[in-house]
């Protein structure tokens, strides 16, 4: 059931609608009582500097395959009914959406825990890099340990 949905993991330039993602997630099961989501967005201000936009580079094929693995692992590990992962690439302006994770389960605890785990693992495992474009120049973001 959870594997029917070919659009559950995506890397794309366009923005996405959370209402539509949630509706697609809900469509996978009538037993879903809890849905936890995480939305990462571009801040206008980072490390003391104004940021006008963020551009992304990705090792696309591997990023998609890692995101698919993460989804499958989360479904098994937390007993989810379904999960979705969407990451934007290209250029994203301040305030815009970057990444979206949704985890649906019968009850709230596994949904909430899976969502937290998924975004932490995505940041560790998925080959995508972020560059901040500021009035003072561009710089690749160095992740904190």
């Amino acid at each position: 059931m959870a594997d029917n949905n070919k659009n559950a993991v995506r890397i794309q330039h366009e923005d996405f609608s959370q209402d539509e993602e949630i509706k697609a997630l809900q469509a996978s099961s009538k037993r879903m009582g809890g849905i936890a989501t995480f939305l990462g967005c571009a801040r206008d201000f980072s490390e003391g500097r104004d940021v006008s936009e963020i551009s992304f580079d990705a090792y696309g094929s591997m990023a998609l395959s890692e995101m698919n693995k993460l989804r499958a692992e989360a479904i098994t590990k937390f007993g989810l009914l379904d999960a979705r992962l969407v990451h934007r690439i290209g250029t994203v302006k301040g305030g815009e959406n970057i990444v979206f994770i949704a985890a649906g389960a019968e009850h709230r605890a596994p949904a909430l825990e899976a969502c937290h785990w998924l975004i932490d693992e995505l940041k560790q495992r998925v080959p995508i890099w972020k560059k901040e474009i500021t009035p003072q120049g561009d710089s690749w973001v160095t992740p904190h340990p």
Partner: protein
Amino acid sequence: MIKVLFFGPVAERVGTNELKVEFHAGMRVQDLRAQLQAQHPAAFEIVCFVAVNGEHTLDMSAALTDNSEVVFMSKFSGG
């Protein structure tokens, strides 16, 4: 030929997204790494991960096969 790819800050330091490196029998990941590191020391300062044919690889002594795709990557900053 080995296809070597670079992304993000590593690509910026190498000055390109892709290089071709001559394959030779017995070539290991660490041989390829040493050769490229000598040519692009600044780029390899920030390399933390290696992928071979789209999979994370920790074993630097693993043998490469001809036509492999190898990617030397800095820490990810997606999400």
